[in-house]
């Protein structure tokens, strides 16, 4: 038993290059800033709504969070934007990381307490909770880190759980008849794009797609046992799935796409500072060569 537990823990904290962690941090925190400004601008307007529209989530009630008002929402917006941009640089990962986590958690309560809860960001929230514990990391840093490995692993687990457990939810709420139901027809009639809407007329296609979605969601955990090359293909498949969903219904799942980068060898993006230093060095050497050549000639 303890041997299994040891192996499971070793897998859970498998070391990754710090450079990968540094890049993931930048991607995740830059996304938070972009989310505030571009992807979910509607959250900010909740501060303007009358108080009786506020239906606080359980977490908001437990924490006795105040009813969002204009000034409160504006304060969280600007503090969070500043903290996220600062955290994206990788500096003070613990302090800035926890600051972003706490503020974004409050932001989520403001977002989801007005009659609609989104399910596209569980893995991103896990990443935000784990990143402050992952220790320092820089883009060119080749040192391998187990703290960083855990942060990336739990993000991956949460991303895959989002698929697997949404299959579970379909069986819980829809039952096995979900597979042959008119759910995708319903989705496309309500929010189909010009590309998606015509699909409701193709006989059998949407039922086949429902079987496909259920199979993919139930099989998604296999991504963890695939050899590395296949694992990357699996992740590419996840991205392709979201691209199809977006093209047909404009449902984007962007936070999930960000969380999925935890599977990628981000350290290959390199070290921008070192690249610049290298370029300068090469340019200097060439200049010296030219000068030397003229002197010799």
């Amino acid at each position, binding site marked *: 038993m303890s041997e299994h*537990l040891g192996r*499971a*823990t070793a897998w*859970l904290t498998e*070391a990754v290059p710090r450079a990968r962690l540094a890049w993931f941090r930048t991607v995740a925190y830059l996304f938070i800033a972009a989310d505030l400004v571009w992807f979910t*601008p*509607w959250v*900010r*307007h909740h501060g*303007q*709504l*009358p108080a*009786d*529209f506020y*239906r606080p*989530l*359980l*977490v908001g009630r437990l924490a006795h969070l105040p009813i969002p008002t204009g000034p409160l929402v504006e304060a969280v917006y600007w503090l969070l934007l500043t903290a996220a941009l600062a955290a994206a640089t990788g500096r003070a990962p613990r302090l800035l990381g926890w600051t972003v986590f706490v503020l974004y958690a409050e932001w*989520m309560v403001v977002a*989801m307490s*007005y*009659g*609609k*809860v989104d*399910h596209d960001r*569980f893995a991103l929230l*896990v990443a935000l909770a784990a990143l402050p*514990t992952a*220790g320092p990391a820089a883009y060119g840093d*080749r*040192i*391998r*880190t*187990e*703290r960083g490995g*855990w942060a990336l692993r739990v993000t991956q*687990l*949460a991303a895959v*759980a989002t698929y697997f*457990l*949404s299959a*579970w*939810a379909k069986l*819980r*709420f*829809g*039952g096995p008849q*979900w597979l*042959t*139901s*008119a*759910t995708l*027809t*319903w*989705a496309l*009639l*309500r929010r189909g794009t010009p590309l998606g809407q015509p699909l*409701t*007329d193709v006989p059998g296609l949407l*039922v086949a797609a429902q079987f496909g979605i259920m199979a993919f969601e139930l099989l998604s955990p296999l991504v963890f046992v695939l050899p590395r090359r296949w694992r990357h293909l699996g992740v590419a498949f996840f991205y392709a799935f979201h691209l199809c969903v977006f093209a047909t219904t404009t449902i984007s799942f962007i936070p999930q796409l960000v969380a999925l980068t935890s599977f990628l060898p981000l350290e290959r993006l390199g070290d921008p500072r070192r690249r610049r230093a290298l370029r300068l060095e090469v340019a200097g050497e060439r200049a010296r060569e030219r000068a030397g050549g003229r002197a010799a000639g």
Partner: protein
Amino acid sequence: MSHDTLSPSGRRLRLAATLIGAVLLLAGTIAGTDDDFPFGPFSMYASAQRLDAPVADTRIEAVDTGGRRWILTQTDTGIRRAEIEGQLDHFTARPATLSALASAYERRHPGAPALTTIEIVVRWHEVRGGHPTGRYNDQTRAVWHP
């Protein structure tokens, strides 16, 4: 140092945190609701829509003092359609609360003609054998005038 290793207690702590998170998420999936966010069930499109049940498509129509009638979108008000659907019972019981949409619109469009009407209309698309027949009927659920 070429390796950033965890202490045994750091490892145990992370294992425990992972297990607690997993248990909460599993519990939310099995018995929770949206209220348990972020640990609630991932229930997007999880209901089984019947092959012959009409499909509801909700829209918010506005008329301004210039007589223009159009569909108020999230871009107009900053409020998502799903949120209005989520609080539809609230609006049908007290249509006066739709004034919140009007003021949200006016805040974002200062100087635009004022709104004289807001209506929440549900379009019921007829569906047979899983395919839309193209027929529908519109049902007005709430009307607001200033």
